[in-house]
């Protein structure tokens, strides 16, 4: 890497840029186009790692490492946690409900992109200085010097911001129980008073053939009852409807028994 202004980088970097850049754009597109949130998250993680590589290529070694560790490692994992919490299998409907929203968005995006490109094109950035001279005293030391002198206030402020954010997240998600938990007896009495569902709710699973909680119990006519599945799963839409399966099973059983009986009849 030269220490004077240059206009061209090494051809190796160019190859790397074109290959990885393509992948990054694909990753970005996948992020916004994948139906399932977990796929989006993984695509984004990929794009971020590529960006980390670009940081390294641009001489921002520290940042590149932080990008991998903090961003891809911590933040993206946080995303995944939440995705799991909300329901990993839940797929987004990509159907647009607001009239004209998608077209407006695309139009604006296109216009904005064209603007940015022309702006960059007109900026006339034909030569660059490179970081050789700055990094000569040690890259991380250089960063540290700036952070703790010129940007010390901003640094302190971001620290405060982080703490605030942490506290804020706790406040938002933590729910203090403000009343005594109802005892079993009280719950039973309430049930009787309301008169909606006197006995306990039916259990999931069909004739104990499944032990998963996401399989609804079947009513005598073979239709599934949503009452048997936990509320959370119902909300996520993660009920595994096995009614058809169960009926098929039943049919198969009857057929098998009929065959056996038939054979027995034949053997008679």
């Amino acid at each position, binding site marked *: 890497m030269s220490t004077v202004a240059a206009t061209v980088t090494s051809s190796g970097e160019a190859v790397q840029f074109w290959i990885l850049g393509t992948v990054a754009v694909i990753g970005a597109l996948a992020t916004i186009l994948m139906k399932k949130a977990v796929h989006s998250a993984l695509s984004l993680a990929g794009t971020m790692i590529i960006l980390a590589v670009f940081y390294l290529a641009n001489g921002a070694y520290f940042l590149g490492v932080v990008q991998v560790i903090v961003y891809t490692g911590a933040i993206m994992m*946080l995303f995944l946690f939440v995705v799991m919490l909300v329901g990993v299998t839940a797929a987004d409907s990509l159907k647009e409900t607001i009239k004209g929203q998608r077209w407006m968005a695309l139009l604006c995006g296109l216009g904005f992109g064209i603007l940015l490109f022309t702006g960059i094109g007109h900026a006339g950035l034909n030569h660059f200085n490179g970081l050789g001279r700055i990094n000569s005293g040690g890259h991380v030391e250089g960063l540290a010097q700036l952070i703790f002198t010129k940007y010390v206030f901003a640094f302190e402020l971001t620290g405060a911001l982080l703490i605030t954010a942490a506290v804020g997240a706790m406040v938002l998600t933590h729910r203090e129980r403000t009343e005594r938990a109802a005892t079993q007896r009280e719950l039973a009495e309430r049930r009787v008073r309301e008169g909606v569902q006197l006995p306990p709710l039916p259990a999931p699973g069909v004739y104990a053939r499944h032990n998963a909680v996401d399989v609804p119990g079947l009513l005598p006519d073979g239709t599934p009852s949503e009452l048997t599945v936990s509320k959370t799963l119902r909300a996520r839409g993660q009920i595994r409807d096995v009614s058809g399966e169960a009926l098929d099973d039943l049919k198969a059983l009857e057929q098998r028994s009929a065959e056996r009986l038939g054979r027995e009849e034949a053997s008679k």
Partner: protein
Amino acid sequence: MNPVNYLYLAALLFTIGAVGVLIRKNAIVLFMCIELMLNACNLAFVAFSRMHGNLDGQIIAFFTMVVAAAEVVVGLAIIVSLFRTRHSASVDDASLMKL
């Protein structure tokens, strides 16, 4: 190759992110798109840092990361509590702003 190409890439990623924000309804994906936009900015900062030959761009990118982290923490907390009450992570469900 000219490092300006990094800027073009950053612009492209930023635009993709912005469009994503506009067309996705799932709040989590929406957040990811925002992260994408922030990352695109960071890339531009890093490229600038290289062009100008000083480290200030990288410092800004560094701060951006911190802010993004804080934002994600709070944002995800909001999503979680929202999900608890509404059983949905769709931003369109939270449309009480109209009269």
